[in-house]
């Protein structure tokens, strides 16, 4: 057994002393084996993965158990000797390559650092090895790729460069910690293929951590499901996908099946928002070119596309933060002034926004009551008893107990609760139209599903229209009435959901759909065989 973690306990420093976050977990990895770790955030996956390197994050400590790597208990070694294992025998690939590469170093220097400090290869040898790996990872111009700085390289390329860096000392085990979570689907598939090829050709063992079941199904021989710092169940991949034993595991599957019931849209005279031939951008660069679409009253229009497709820029144009160079936006058939400053209070009230990161969108120093009272007073002039009544209604609408939550600070709430407050703040203005910008991307699947259900319910109650910006096709399928597909600042296709998606009408839509990982463990193998793996993004 290459790695044998036995009864591992890890504790976190809290206000009242140390609290356990891993309650005695076992993990075995044989040479050449790939083990998938799956669970929601807070399940302890990353903590377990890092323990394989004898490492805990700041504020955590090992509280018991053993981490036997090739027979040596890493926890018994002093820090100095643990360092000899890190990078050399066990390597780590982080979620965000953009944040995990040192911005001040060239990629090649970062690659060669490991072999240099572990004395596994000379500089010339490791430079050569880097070029080989860059070529094997299908990186552009592998001869000179390493001379670039991290900011000069795209996200997908950077993630592959990080996989290459992890292999610099030819380790026995690599821990992949959500390596594709931050990537677009079309980019993700290329990185997945590169990782799998690398693991297969070198015969290295791997721990693959993710919250995406379909992804882990492609990568792992064996899957361990975790929750709240404990193991839920463990089984070989096909068995786990085909016949999960535990309810919790089954619930992870079920999320993907949430569908809003089909419904007939009210036939209104004018659409809530109408975007006409909008071209917009920053300095000399056009981010949007000739974008037109409508958002019917009471409908949910999903805008899908990869990062850089212009989804968020469209939102900025609608809200008046970025005046368009050409074209116009109208609300209920009346043209909106292009600049936010020129809009009337009434026009501002009608268009509200919910953000991706509820964490940063809520003022951490204000209580929930203050956060929600502000729009009530500013837009509607509510004070005193009237405001209090409305606060209660809003909290009931978002299904949070007013008595418990109104006087708390955002920091005391969970991610899903914070996002509910974000929704309540938008609803407080009594808007006609809400832009939801990737509102579920930062949330776990179960929590995200709750938010989607809530948004659907609110729409049924109030008749508000949504523009739902997302890169996730499953979310689109769950909630949208109409779909707009964007790429490179242009609208590729738009129309009712079934027309656009089932079957995909436009080539690009087809590519997007084909890149979304499926539960079938053979999905990636088939894609690679079909040559449907994009070697590189433009």
């Amino acid at each position, binding site marked *: 057994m290459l790695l044998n973690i036995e009864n591992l306990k890890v504790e976190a420093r809290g206000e009242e002393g140390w609290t356990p976050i891993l309650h005695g977990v076992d993990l075995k990895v044989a040479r050449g084996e790939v083990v998938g770790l799956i669970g929601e955030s807070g399940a302890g996956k990353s903590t377990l993965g890092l323990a394989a390197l004898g490492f805990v994050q700041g504020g955590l400590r090992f509280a018991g158990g053993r981490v036997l790597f090739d027979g040596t208990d890493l926890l018994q070694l002093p820090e100095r000797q643990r360092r000899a294992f890190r990078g050399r025998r066990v390597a780590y690939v982080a979620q965000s390559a953009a944040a995990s590469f040192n911005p001040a170093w060239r990629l090649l220097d970062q690659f060669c650092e*490991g072999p240099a*400090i572990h004395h596994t290869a000379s500089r010339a040898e490791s430079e050569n090895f880097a070029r080989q790996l860059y070529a094997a990872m299908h990186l552009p111009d592998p001869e000179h790729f390493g001379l670039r700085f991290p900011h000069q390289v795209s996200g997908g390329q950077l993630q592959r460069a990080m996989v290459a860096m992890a292999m610099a000392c030819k380790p026995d085990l690599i821990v992949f910690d959500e390596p594709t979570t931050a990537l677009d689907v079309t980019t993700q598939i290329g990185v997945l293929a590169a990782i799998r090829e690398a693991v297969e050709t070198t015969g290295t063992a791997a721990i693959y951590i993710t919250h995406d079941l379909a992804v882990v199904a492609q990568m792992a021989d064996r899957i361990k499901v975790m929750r709240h710092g404990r193991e839920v169940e463990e089984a070989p991949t096909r068995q786990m996908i085909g016949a999960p034993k535990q309810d919790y595991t089954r619930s992870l599957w079920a999320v993907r099946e949430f569908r809003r019931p089909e419904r007939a849209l009210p036939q209104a005279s004018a659409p809530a928002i109408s975007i006409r031939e909008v071209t917009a951008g920053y300095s000399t660069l056009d981010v949007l070119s000739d974008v037109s679409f409508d958002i019917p009253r009471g409908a949910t229009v999903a805008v899908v596309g990869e990062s850089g497709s212009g989804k968020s820029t469209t939102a900025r144009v609608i809200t008046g933060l970025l005046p368009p160079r050409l074209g116009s936006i109208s609300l209920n058939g009346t043209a909106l002034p292009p600049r936010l400053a020129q809009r009337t209070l009434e026009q501002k009230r009608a268009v509200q926004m919910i953000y991706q990161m509820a964490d940063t969108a809520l003022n951490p120093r204000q209580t929930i009551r203050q956060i929600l009272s502000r729009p009530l007073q500013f837009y509607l002039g509510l004070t005193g008893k009237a405001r209090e009544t409305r606060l209660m209604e809003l909290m009931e609408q978002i299904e949070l107990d007013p008595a418990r939550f109104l006087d708390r600070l955002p920091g005391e709430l969970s991610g899903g609760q914070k996002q509910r407050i974000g929704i309540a703040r938008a609803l407080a203005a009594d808007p006609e139209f809400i832009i939801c910008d990737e509102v579920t991307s930062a949330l776990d699947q179960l929590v995200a599903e709750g938010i989607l259900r809530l948004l659907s319910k609110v729409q049924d109650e109030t008749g508000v229209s949504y523009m739902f910006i997302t890169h996730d096709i499953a979310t689109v399928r769950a909630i949208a009435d109409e779909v707009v597909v964007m790429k490179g600042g242009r609208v590729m296709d738009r129309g009712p959901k079934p027309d656009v998606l089932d079957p995909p009408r436009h080539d690009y839509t087809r590519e997007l759909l084909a890149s979304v990982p499926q539960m079938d463990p053979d999905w990636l193998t088939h894609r690679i065989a079909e040559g449907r793996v994009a070697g590189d993004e433009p």
Partner: protein
Amino acid sequence: MSAPAARRQRPILRMIVGRLGIGVFTLFVISVLIFLAVSLLPGDIAQQVLGQSATPETVAAFRRELGLDQPLIWRYLDWVGGVLSGDFGRSLANGRPVAELLAARLGNTLFLAAYAAVIAVPVAVGLGLLSALWRGSWFDRIANVATLSAISFPEFFIAYILMFWLSVRMGWLPSIADPGASPRLGEMLSRAFLPAITLVLVVTAHMMRMTRAAVVNVLGAPYVTMARLKGVSRWRVVTRHALPNALAPIVNVVALNIAWLITGVVIVEVVFVYPGLGQLMVDSVTNRDIPVVQACALIFAAVYILLNLLADVLAIATNPRLLHPR
């Protein structure tokens, strides 16, 4: 499209030229302010210089000689024109060219500042790095308390304490720093040692704390964790991974402190009788030696602007995004 492309290729050069332009403009504004401030001083300079007993005729003649009968703008242009061609006018006190007076003093001031900076900057940055490495440890706390105590005492107090122990009691070093006419380097170094050490004690805390804060800030970054997971030692993480990304704020504080070492050390100069620019300026203010005061003020302003400009350029030049655009 070609113009923006060209601009994107050389952002650093463009930035430096832009900052230089702003620096020159600032210097111009300051020269106007200095000139106005001096001309707004109460009393008539000619009257003051000549004393109460002077006849109105001699005062008027002296005023004409000084150019004080000319309009303000004309006098300003005359002065600035002189400065630009290297002529700062003549001292009212002794009639010698101001440029000549300044040259010797400026040399002394720069020597003392460089002396102090050469010791203080490595010490401060080193201590800052070590206390970032061992943050929360005894070393960290002691370094903090020691440097903060040093900055909290008035500099004349430190100066006298050092003088009392090292010079009067132990007799190791001279207490008067005036190096006399054309001394050798060794003698200059030993004579200026006490004032230099006094200055080191005053400026170290600020630079050390900024180094520590900037480095600690970066130590939370994911790429620092990544480096540790590659097996990099903690010292190497601090010096090779964190420091290069924390340089901008450190460089800024270092530049500010060096500027202070050049322009703000009057008290130390007086205590050690060191013939620097600060003393010259104070003497000139007492003597109403207006041309010298103006010249000193202008030099101090130029030093501040130049060093801040340098810090800005260095701070931006350590940002690979600007140095190596996409």
